[in-house]
């Protein structure tokens, strides 16, 4: 891709600006580090789920299972291995990123193995199966973690003080992970792989008949999505001082799906814009109607599904701007 085309397309520009703004906010301390970490976490999980839900059209309702699995893997790694724990605060937190890669890898592996049978299911059956997966994993963790170490009451792992990473280092790890996820989203969307996934979401049989290796593509996208979700779970677990069963809570699925639906599926910009809208809405509603913010968000989603099934970005893509079809430039 030459530089010209790059700037003619607003999506990469938007991604670039987003990344720069977060960095500036950090360097100039416009926002607290933790707030930036939280924002990146929420946008990140939406973008991670987008790979399987937005592109391939498979709604993974139990996607939080990967936050949980990798969160626990990461926590156990640094709990039991002091070397890892010591490493975390060296080299500006880059090692955190690599341990998170490892933890994400476990999620990817689980997704791959589970995906072989489960991705044969379509639509609602897949969604239900992933919910089942989430609960199965949760119950298994609840059963075995306390056996592993009597310190882990109620499957809660509290990280020892030596295994805590400095916020700046967590920020670095989260920032790299976040950038990786968005850029991966963009590259996938532009690639042949992404075209294939979108074709699958449109009509899987037709896609297979046209030569799209659907089984392979679905598996890869599910594993990739799980991988990124897992990395976020790992870094976020570290930031929360440890992990507990809350990581498996379907409430996080609500966050992810709501962000994607508001923004619009099938694009990179969709969940990006969606998660930013979601965050602003959530924060303002939280201040004005703290009791009802989720009820209101539920209504918003219900209305969007009914009247704008392709989300905010979907509406935009149907419009023209300065004689140009926005569909061509918003990816």
């Amino acid at each position, binding site marked *: 891709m030459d530089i010209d085309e790059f700037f003619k397309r607003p999506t990469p520009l938007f991604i670039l600006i987003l990344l720069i703004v977060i960095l*500036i906010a950090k360097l100039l301390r416009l926002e607290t580090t*933790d*707030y930036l970490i939280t924002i990146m976490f929420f946008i990140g999980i939406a973008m991670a789920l987008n790979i399987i839900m937005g592109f391939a059209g498979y709604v993974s309702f139990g996607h939080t299972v990967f936050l949980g699995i990798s969160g626990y893997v990461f926590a156990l790694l640094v709990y039991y291995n002091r070397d890892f724990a010591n490493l975390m605060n060296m080299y500006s937190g880059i090692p955190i990123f690599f341990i998170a890669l490892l933890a994400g890898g476990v999620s990817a592996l689980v997704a791959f193995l589970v995906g072989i049978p489960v991705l044969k299911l379509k639509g609602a059956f897949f969604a239900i199966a992933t919910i089942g997966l989430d609960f199965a994993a949760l119950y298994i963790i609840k059963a075995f973690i306390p056996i592993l170490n009597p310190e882990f009451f*109620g499957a809660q792992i509290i990280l020892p003080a030596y295994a*805590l990473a400095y916020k700046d280092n967590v920020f670095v790890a989260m920032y790299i992970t976040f950038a990786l996820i968005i850029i991966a989203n963009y590259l996938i969307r532009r690639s042949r792989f992404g075209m294939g996934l979108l074709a699958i979401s449109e009509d899987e049989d037709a896609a297979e008949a046209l030569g799209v290796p659907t089984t392979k593509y679905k598996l890869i996208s599910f594993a990739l999505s799980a991988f990124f979700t897992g990395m976020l779970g790992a870094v976020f677990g570290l930031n*929360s001082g440890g992990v507990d069963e809350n990581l498996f809570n379907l409430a996080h699925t609500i966050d992810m799906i709501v962000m994607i639906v508001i923004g619009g599926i099938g694009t990179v910009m969709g969940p990006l814009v969606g998660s930013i809208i979601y965050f602003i809405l959530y924060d303002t509603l*939280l201040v004005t109607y703290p009791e009802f913010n989720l009820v209101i968000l539920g209504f918003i989603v219900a209305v969007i599904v009914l009247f704008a099934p392709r989300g905010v970005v979907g509406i935009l893509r149907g419009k023209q701007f300065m004689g140009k079809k926005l569909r061509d430039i918003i990816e």
Partner: protein
Amino acid sequence: MRSRLAIATSTLVVLIIIILAIIGGAVWYFMSLQGGAQYGGVIKIGVTVSLKGKFQHEGDLALKGMQVAVKWINDHGGVNVGGKKYNVTLVYYDDESSPDRVPELYSKLIEEDKVDILLAPYSSTLTKAAAPVAEQFKKVIVSHGGASDSIFQQGYKYAVQALTPATKYLKSIVTLLKEQNDPDIKIALIYENTAFSSTVAKGAKAAIQEAGLNLVYEFAYEKGTQDFASVIEEAKAAGANVLLGGGHFQDGVALTQQAWQLGWKLKAIGILVAPTLPDFYQKLGDAANGVMAPAQWEYGVKYSPDVAKNLGVEWYGPTNDEYIEMFRDMFGGEPDYHAAEATAAVLFAVKAIEKAGSLDSDAIRAAAGQLDILTFFGRLKIDPQTGLQIAHEMVVIQWQNGEKKIIYPEAAAQASPIYPATNWWQR
């Protein structure tokens, strides 16, 4: 043509970056101006409370408790730090009972609101998320609702505890049992499988062992369990004649009720949390009589400046009556132990600052380690190393003829214990 476009667009990007940088720099400049200004005479205490979600009931009471403490301190001339008078103010956010945003809110408290000392959120799940932030910014964080001790075993330097740790919850009841000198005590431990109750159970087991008593049955049930029939049958079959355990209100009530209905003959029953609430008797009637419970604080506790004098420690804060009255005045309701814990935490934090004579966290932490005070909530003293509470003692209450009586420790007792619980044992 192509290169011209490239130049134009790259110029645009560079421009955007420069503009962003200028805006950012300006904001930074003004913020640093603000930061440089001194907030003369006000100590800021930062905390998140759960005003929504599963801990909203406890969070609401805790917040009120803190507000009472703040009012009391300011009404009594504030606090003397290094020769200057300071007032106290509370800065708080709603954490929605979810650990997700706790780190963010705590760093906001520290970085933006520039609070001087922190109180922990309610519950150990949330405390777990807050403690690392405090640790990194080197702010003392006083725990008031996180009775689990795990945090304090993980080497956190700035975390201190203002209430009895969970491991000691049932210790008083076990001591009481030991004092009965009954050779035939067979204990069943049936508790909720949550971090808090499991920790309590672990402490209870250690105490039972230490006292040389006989534990014959143990079971942890899932959160939300209402049906204990099979568990009770098993415990009965194991020959147990003392029941210890419970978790929250509903399951505590159900456990007691079903033990009663299934005709389990018990010499003593010690249940967490539920029996401390008046509803317990309303729901259970006669079955409530004889049931004991540990409590962090109770209405009738007799800690007073006189007791402090006898103990040779300093008294601080309102008296018990004064406290209850203030609470009623301010909020119209009744305080419970959630409120009292929070009040005590504020008192402890402020006293530590006063003793340190500065707002420097390390000085506060060191002073907290040396502090030994008596409040309406009880005696407060922490282990200088771990921050664990070591002086505060649980009181034990027992329902006797429809009334809740404090039966332990003797210094605070209103009545003597009924053992064995006649209505349960001789039916």
